[in-house]
C-alpha cells in the first residue's frame, strides 16, 4: 500500500463507548455507497481490503492455478458516534455473488443492510437483494436519485419485487440530512422486525 502518507491521523473512539454496531451499505458497482458513507461519517471514510480466494471459472489464463484465484476487494467504511455509548460503523459492501467469504465476514454481527439502488439501473440490484436475503439480513431500499428521472415508489417496488413492509426511501447520497433520513428509515424498520 502506498497510501500511508495521505492516511489521516487516527481518531480514537470515545472512552465512554461500550457498544460498536455495524450496518452494511450495499449496492452494485458505482451506485454511490462510498458517497453515502462519506456524507454521514464523522471521520474521513477509510479503506481497507479483504483478500479472498474465489472460483475462477471465468478467468482463463492462470497457469498453475487451475481452480482458484486470489483477489482483493477494497471496502470503504465510516464511523458515527451516537450518544455516549454507541458507535456505528457503516461498511460499504459490494454486491457480487462470488464474494462469499467477504459476505460471511460482513454479515456477521450486522444489524441490517441499507440497499442503495440506482433508479435507471434497477436490474443491477437483483443480485444484491438476493445476497442480502441469503444472509438473512433485514434491509430497506434507498433510491439514490442523482438523476432527474423519477420513478414512483410503486414502480420501484414492482420492479424489485419487494415485500409490502420493506421500506423504500429516496435519497441524495451526497447530502448528509438526506442520507440520514434513509438510514433512520432502515433503523426504524429493524426495530419493528426485532420486536
Amino acid at each position, binding site marked *: *500500500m*502506498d*497510501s500511508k502518507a495521505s*492516511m489521516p491521523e*487516527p481518531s*480514537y*473512539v470515545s*472512552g465512554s*463507548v*461500550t*457498544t*460498536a*454496531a*455495524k*450496518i452494511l451499505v450495499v449496492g452494485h458497482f458505482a451506485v454511490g*455507497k*462510498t458517497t453515502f458513507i462519506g456524507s454521514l461519517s464523522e471521520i474521513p471514510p*477509510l*479503506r*481497507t*481490503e*479483504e*483478500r479472498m480466494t474465489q472460483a475462477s471459472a471465468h478467468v482463463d489464463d492462470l497457469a498453475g492455478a487451475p481452480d482458484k*484465484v*486470489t*483477489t*482483493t*476487494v*477494497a*471496502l470503504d*467504511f465510516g*464511523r*458515527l458516534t*451516537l*450518544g455516549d*455509548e*454507541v*458507535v*456505528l*460503523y457503516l*461498511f*460499504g*459492501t*459490494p454486491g*457480487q455473488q462470488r464474494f462469499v467469504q467477504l459476505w460471511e*465476514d*460482513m454479515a*456477521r*454481527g450486522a*444489524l441490517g443492510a441499507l440497499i442503495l439502488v440506482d433508479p435507471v439501473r434497477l436490474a443491477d440490484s437483483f443480485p444484491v437483494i438476493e445476497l442480502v436475503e441469503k444472509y438473512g439480513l433485514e434491509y430497506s431500499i434507498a433510491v439514490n436519485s442523482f438523476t432527474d428521472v423519477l420513478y414512483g415508489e410503486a414502480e420501484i417496488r414492482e420492479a424489485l419485487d419487494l415485500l409490502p413492509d420493506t421500506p423504500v426511501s429516496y435519497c441524495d447520497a451526497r447530502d*448528509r440530512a438526506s442520507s*440520514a*433520513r434513509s*438510514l*433512520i428509515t432502515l*433503523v*426504524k424498520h429493524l*426495530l419493528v422486525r*426485532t*420486536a
Partner: protein
Amino acid sequence: MSAPGEEAPVSSELVRSYVITGGRRLPSADDLSLHMLVTLAPDRELPLGASPEVRAIWELCAGGYLAVAEVAAHLGLPVGVARLLLTDLADQGHLLRRSAPPPAKSESRLVIEKVLHGLQSLYA
C-alpha cells in the same frame, strides 16, 4: 489501488503478507469482527524483537479504542493480516477488546434503539 467494491489481482502484496504472518493461516473472523473495538492494555511492554508491523500496530493501538477495520486501514494491511497480528497480541494478554454485543434478540433490540435515538437526535 482499486476502487471500492472492485477486485484487483494480488501481486507482490501477497508475498509481503506471507512474510508478516510467517506463512500462518489467517484466523477466522469469529473472534475479531470488523467492528470490534480494540486497544492496548495498560502498562504493557513491546515484546523484544517485535516486527515493524507489530511495532506499528502497538503504537496505533496504544492511543485508544479503534475498530479492527480501522486498525487495518490505518496500517495499510489487509483485514486478515491485521486480524492475525491482533490475535497474537490478544493471546499474549496485550489487547483489551470491547466486544460487540451477543446476537441475542433482546440485546440487539437495545442496540437498535440506541442507534435510532442517536441518529434522531443528530438529525432530527
